[in-house]
């Protein structure tokens, strides 16, 4: 460009908008739009429940409504999804069921609550990842149970197994019920009964104790049995297998040992597990009992199948069914699959005891209604929650050919056909675990993780430190101390949903 051309350009009429001004305005606009964008993610008040017309059948009141149910891809939901017709016939309500892996479910629920539009009316409310952090975004179900012309729960809340109702349904001490127990996976001792039968005499003689699995065995005896099977049994390569992958499963597997040895995560651990807390206090993992438990667990995994460090609960279940291991602690709802793969060969017992007790971690979940759901959808959501947790539906789930969980209602366990199924040959193979889980759900035996809103992050801190211990990068004492330090930091930051 020549000087002359440049001069001519500078004497052109001044444009309305300079570049700098445009950038300034652009920046301001972007800021304003960003603010508007975030403000647009706000919530609005849900519509009230419509008034019931006199004489209307409470179950048909919301016919024609469509609701969305988001669930983890668990056996009860698979059974319900496969047999929704009875509900649609009863109520005229259409239910869209979304099945997701748990982490994906937690993300969707959190983002849905942030949006405040209740895309998901009914939510699979994991007590630790959904209920505790987002209880303020859920509906108190007592306000719907038999009120405003809505049908009450058959047999009432008292029919639910009490520890499950508190652990999976409540948060805090204000009596609110946010979720109804929907499934009840609990970790128990799963073992190859055929191997224990065949080698019982030799095992007893060599080990010097009765090796029959049960809550009378100690974890130390469990380790000795596993080591004995490693050395003397040809049918399986290893005695025990564990879900010791760097994953939630590692925390679950370790917690059984921790509680058995008298350790815990926080003061009043049982109460924090049952009722939940936002301020659980200082972490107790630095204490001797926790270090002793970690030391034992480290030794146990060392003699376990080498695949243990890469297995979660699915991996170890597959290994048991594939004949790679003779026993493992795992969720009891694997019983149906076990019976399919190795019919009559796998039995169940409560987990061994430590110096303190036998502890069996509970992993049950409830279903809840989003606090943003309103109008007819709120009513229809209650009908669905009521129906899905009813004794009849739970029995139907138990019989389902696509899996089905185990009931959360006491009355279902009293039914003759269910009692009969506790023995082989069983048409309801999950009921083969009934003796073991009935013991495991007693208050002295149940193991409850801390129900705190920030548990997801604490859990990650713990299983990461445990994984480092199992990899030989740190001692059990260092693992417990580091985990306690990290958990204290996380708890100190507080929860800010």
């Amino acid at each position, binding site marked *: 460009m020549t000087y002359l051309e440049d001069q001519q350009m500078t004497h052109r009429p001044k444009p309305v908008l*300079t570049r700098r001004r445009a950038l300034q305005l652009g920046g301001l606009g*972007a800021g304003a739009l960003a603010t508007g964008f*975030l403000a647009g*993610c*706000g919530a609005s008040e849900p519509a009230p429940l419509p008034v019931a017309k006199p004489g209307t059948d409470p179950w048909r009141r919301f016919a024609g409504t469509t609701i969305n149910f988001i669930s983890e891809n668990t056996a009860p939901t698979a059974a319900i999804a496969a047999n929704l017709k009875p509900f649609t016939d009863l109520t005229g309500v259409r239910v869209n069921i979304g099945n997701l892996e748990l982490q994906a479910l937690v993300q969707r629920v959190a983002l849905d609550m942030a949006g405040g539009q209740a895309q998901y009316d009914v939510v699979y409310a994991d007590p630790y990842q959904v209920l505790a952090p987002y209880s303020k975004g859920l509906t108190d179900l007592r306000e719907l149970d038999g009120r405003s012309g809505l049908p009450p729960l058959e047999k009432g809340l008292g029919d639910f197994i009490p520890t499950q109702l508190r652990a999976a349904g409540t948060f805090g001490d204000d009596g609110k019920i946010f979720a109804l127990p929907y499934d009840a996976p609990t970790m128990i001792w799963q073992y190859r009964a055929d191997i224990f039968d065949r080698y019982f005499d030799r095992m007893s003689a060599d080990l010097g104790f009765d090796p029959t699995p049960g809550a009378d065995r100690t974890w130390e005896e469990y380790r000795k049995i596993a080591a004995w099977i490693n050395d003397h049994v040809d049918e399986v390569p290893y005695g025990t297998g564990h879900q010791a992958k760097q994953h939630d499963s590692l925390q679950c597997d370790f917690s059984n040992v921790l509680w058995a040895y008298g350790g815990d995560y926080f003061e009043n651990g049982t109460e924090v597990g049952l009722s939940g807390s936002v301020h659980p206090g200082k972490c107790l993992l630095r204490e001797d009992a926790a270090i002793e438990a970690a030391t034992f667990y480290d030794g146990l995994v060392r003699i376990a199948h*080498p695949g243990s460090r890469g297995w979660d609960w699915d991996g170890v279940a597959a290994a048991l069914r594939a004949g790679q291991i003779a026993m493992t602690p795992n969720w009891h709802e694997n019983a149906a699959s076990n019976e399919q793969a190795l019919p009559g060969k796998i039995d169940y017992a409560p987990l061994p005891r430590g110096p303190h007790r036998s502890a069996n971690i509970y992993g049950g979940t409830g279903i809840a209604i989003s606090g943003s759901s309103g109008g007819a959808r709120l009513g229809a959501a209650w009908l669905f929650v009521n129906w899905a947790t009813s004794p009849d539906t739970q029995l139907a789930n138990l019989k389902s050919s696509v899996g089905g969980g185990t009931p959360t209602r006491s009355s279902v366990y009293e039914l003759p056909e269910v009692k009969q199924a506790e023995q082989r040959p069983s048409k309801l193979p999950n009921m083969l675990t009934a003796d073991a889980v009935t013991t495991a759900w007693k208050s002295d035996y149940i193991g409850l993780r801390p129900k705190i809103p920030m548990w*997801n992050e604490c859990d990650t801190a713990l299983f990461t430190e445990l994984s480092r211990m199992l*990899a030989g990068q740190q001692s059990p004492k260092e693992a417990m101390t580091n985990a306690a330090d990290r958990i204290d930091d996380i708890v100190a930051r507080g929860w800010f949903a």
Partner: protein
Amino acid sequence: MTTTVDRATRAGADPAPRRSRLTLHELMMAPALLLLAVLSIIPLVTLIAMSFSRVRLLGGVRLEWVGLDNWSRALTDADLWHGWALTLVYFVITLAIEMVLGIAIAAVLSRLARGRGPLLVLVLLPMFVAPAIVGLLGRYLTDSTFGLYAWVLQGVGIHHDILGNPHSALAAVVLMDVWEWTPLIALISLAGMTSVNPSILEAAALDGAGSWRTLWHIVLPSIMNVLTVALLIRSMDLVRYFDIITVTTNGGPADATKIMPLRLYESSFRFFDLGYAAVIGLMMLVLTIVIARIFVRMLSGKGQNA
């Protein structure tokens, strides 16, 4: 041409600061720029705001100003720095293996007179598999219960679990990425090699240069621009490598495979600590820009030299 004297004269004649004006062209580009702002600038501004805030979700998204808390936490977080170191190690190893292997495969393919087409299709196949599927395949092949690779290793007396050991797990996820993306490097390199002037190669052959010397001194310098583009593409991908690790190890064991994208995901969508996640996201953005700038500068340098 404008001389120094001209510029000095004009500076003396017009001492007032010049304000640049929007031209007609720029005004016509405004709608596109506005769209760009909506798609890029607003999210960036939001992300920066989030990094100085505590983000609440329930009842609508709200930002609470916390100053430099998230940044100071990130800068003093030993685990986060371990994640950065691991990301760097992973990045360098994977990129080096992919480049060396990719160029080697391309060199072999370029010398084939017959059957190059079918062989190229076979080589390229892994590239068309979704990364999550590659992860699943890897997980199943290395599973110590039924995995083929695990079975082979057990056959030679190695019984440890591939994904359960920190060193072998990192090697496994690196190799899975190498398996999937080396073909891309091979394809790009092959395209470059086929464009090398045949007369130069003939001259080299007449001068007695062997295959290795021809590759090293003639072919590779000739295709350096193409290789830089390949490096740039793979680098951008590697910085956000996520799928395969999530499916196979989920960052374990002992955090041995927890590179930055997994930490970002964990902070944002598992812990919903969105302020802290924004800091990690911005750090990754800076890294990406730095890497892109380095390669673009290399590319433009080569372009000027050529």
